[in-house]
């Protein structure tokens, strides 16, 4: 990899490309990571994060998190804030999988209770939570009902018995972004997504049964607040987004924005994937509303999946989910744009914060941190590669620099093609089974693409966020079962 010679190290885990690096940069680009992680980053990361720094109305800097890698438009791991009145909104700064995110659920079971039933559990989850190419859910909604669902988010599900009231309290924005008007959503997006509620998708999406080891608890107090209370406790973590609905919303508006960006708003196009429009323009506000619908679809999708997980555990263990202690810890989004208030040069400003492959990580006491977590900070759920491990982190005051944002996963280092040439799905499946991890995968080639070796070291990534002051480690989880799309 060629690191640009203009890259300056400004602290132990923060590096800067100054505005002089590229014509048109309005602010510096700040990239977080240890020396090793920075050296692993592709040239595309530096290209893309510096392109983001040229977008009109960008505030403070264009950021890239330690799991950053080469994407389209923004790098994956990209964060950028724009003035909420005069700035722009960019679908390429959010991603096609709008509100792709993570949800974590506890149980009161220990590894010794679950291990003997792991195959049965994973096989049932594989059936009840459809995964893979296309993918149709078990929940049927008419087009009209689906339009209500995308306006109401997770609440739509809870009101129909798919979940508990407390789940909403423990979801970012209570599982619904306000201002989602389904009239801004095309019929095509509805046709594409209305039968996919309760589905995982594929690529790097998964559902995993994990164990907390005593040695992997970094902050016992915060862990207990989040319901991690005993050694060898079993939890369930899953990763998915707004499925075809969100992809279609993003595709439709990308097309629309390209038609008006330069001709109507005079914004030069550096990379068409960075298409944007003023947030308060007719096109910008329609996309913002449609994007919120997709955010709500993803919250609803994860809500229905949580419900299925509870059903499966209840069935396998012959006990109610309530008695199995299946409480949601939290649900976080890592592909969104949201209006937030942040301090800039001593002044409170309303900003539209884009996070693409980056997670909000609010500090203790901040607004929208659930009452139960006000003292410890917002939980941040980090999915590692399926072979390694995952993390639960919390936000902290020193995260203000990045508008309280942190990493979202471990980040790829190897392309999908290269991973398929290097690894074999069947061998990974067998090796993981030998190591005590029971995996069911829809696609063997897909499994090879997600091999642990195709990813950065998740331990390095979360440690870098800790050194940089963005988030703090609470618990590390190890997988014992996995459903892979």
């Amino acid at each position, binding site marked *: 990899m060629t690191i640009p010679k203009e890259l300056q190290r400004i602290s132990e885990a923060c590096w800067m490309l100054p505005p002089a690096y590229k014509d048109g940069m309005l602010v510096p680009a700040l990239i977080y990571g240890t020396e090793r992680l920075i050296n692993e980053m592709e040239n595309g990361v530096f290209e893309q994060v510096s392109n983001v720094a040229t977008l009109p109305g960008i505030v403070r800097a264009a950021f890239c998190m330690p799991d950053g890698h080469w994407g*389209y438009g923004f790098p994956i791991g990209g964060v950028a804030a724009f003035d909420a009145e005069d700035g722009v909104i960019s679908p390429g700064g959010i991603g096609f999988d709008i509100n792709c995110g993570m949800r974590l659920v506890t149980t009161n079971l220990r590894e010794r209770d679950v291990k003997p039933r792991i195959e049965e559990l994973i096989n049932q989850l594989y059936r009840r939570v459809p995964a893979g190419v296309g993918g149709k859910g078990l929940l049927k909604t008419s087009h009209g009902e689906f339009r209500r669902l995308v306006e109401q988010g997770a609440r739509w599900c809870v009101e129909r018995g798919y979940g508990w009231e407390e789940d909403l309290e423990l979801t970012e924005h209570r599982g619904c972004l306000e201002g989602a008007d389904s009239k801004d959503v095309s019929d095509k997006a509805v046709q594409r997504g209305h039968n996919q509620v309760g589905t995982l998708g594929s690529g790097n999406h998964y559902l995993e049964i994990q164990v907390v080891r005593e040695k992997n608890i970094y902050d016992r107090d915060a862990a207990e607040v989040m319901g991690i209370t005993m050694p060898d406790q079993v939890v369930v973590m899953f990763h998915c987004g707004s499925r075809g609905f969100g992809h279609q919303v993003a595709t439709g508006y990308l097309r629309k924005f390209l038609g008006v960006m330069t001709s109507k708003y005079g914004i030069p196009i550096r990379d068409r994937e960075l298409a944007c429009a003023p947030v308060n323009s007719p096109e910008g506000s329609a996309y913002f509303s449609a994007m919120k619908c997709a955010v709500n679809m993803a919250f609803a999708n994860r809500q229905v999946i949580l419900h299925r997980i509870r059903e499966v555990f209840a069935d396998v263990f012959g006990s109610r989910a309530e008695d199995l202690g299946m409480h949601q810890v939290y649900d976080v989004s890592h592909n969104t744009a949201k209006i937030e208030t942040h301090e800039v040069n001593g002044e409170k400003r309303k900003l539209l914060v884009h996070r693409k492959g980056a997670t909000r990580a609010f500090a203790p006491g901040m607004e929208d941190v659930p009452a139960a977590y006000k003292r410890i900070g917002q939980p941040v759920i980090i999915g590692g590669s399926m072979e390694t491990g995952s993390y639960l982190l919390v936000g902290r005051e020193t995260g203000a620099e990045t508008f309280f944002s942190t990493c979202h996963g471990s980040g790829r280092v190897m392309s999908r093609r290269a991973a398929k040439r290097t690894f074999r799905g069947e061998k990974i499946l067998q090796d993981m089974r030998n190591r005590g991890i029971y995996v069911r995968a829809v696609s063997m080639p897909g499994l090879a693409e997600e091999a642990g070796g195709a990813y950065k070291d998740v331990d390095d990534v979360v440690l870098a966020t800790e050194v940089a002051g963005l988030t703090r480690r609470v618990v590390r989880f190890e997988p014992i079962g996995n459903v892979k799309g």
Partner: protein
Amino acid sequence: MMNRGHYEYLDDVATADVAFRATGATLEDVFVACADATLEVMLPDPDTLENRVKRRITISAENEEMLLFNFLGEIIFLKDAEQLLLRVQSMEVSGGRIQAECAGDKIDAEKYVLGVDVKAVTMYKYHVRRTPAGWQAQVVLDI
């Protein structure tokens, strides 16, 4: 048998996604090759696809780039909306319009060895251009 252009996947563009370049003597050849490359991501052995369902896809757009963008977008749309994997049987491009006859089958993980889901066509490093030998297209798919 119609001509199908050639395609190759590219390793050095966008690590997390799939990039390919297609070439052909005519616009039709290149568009068909792009549809084949997109299908192969979801169905690694496209020759196994049975022709059980037929679909005609008609697309209009202002230029070649938007024609291809919308055409691939339609194939991806049908994969979710109707659970269909499709191959182009014949295609005609003229006057800013694609008319394609496609055939394929419902997605079935029991019947087919599936690959990974394609979410969208991105505009990153995207192009359709004339070359001395005909046409070339480059596409990055979001996975």
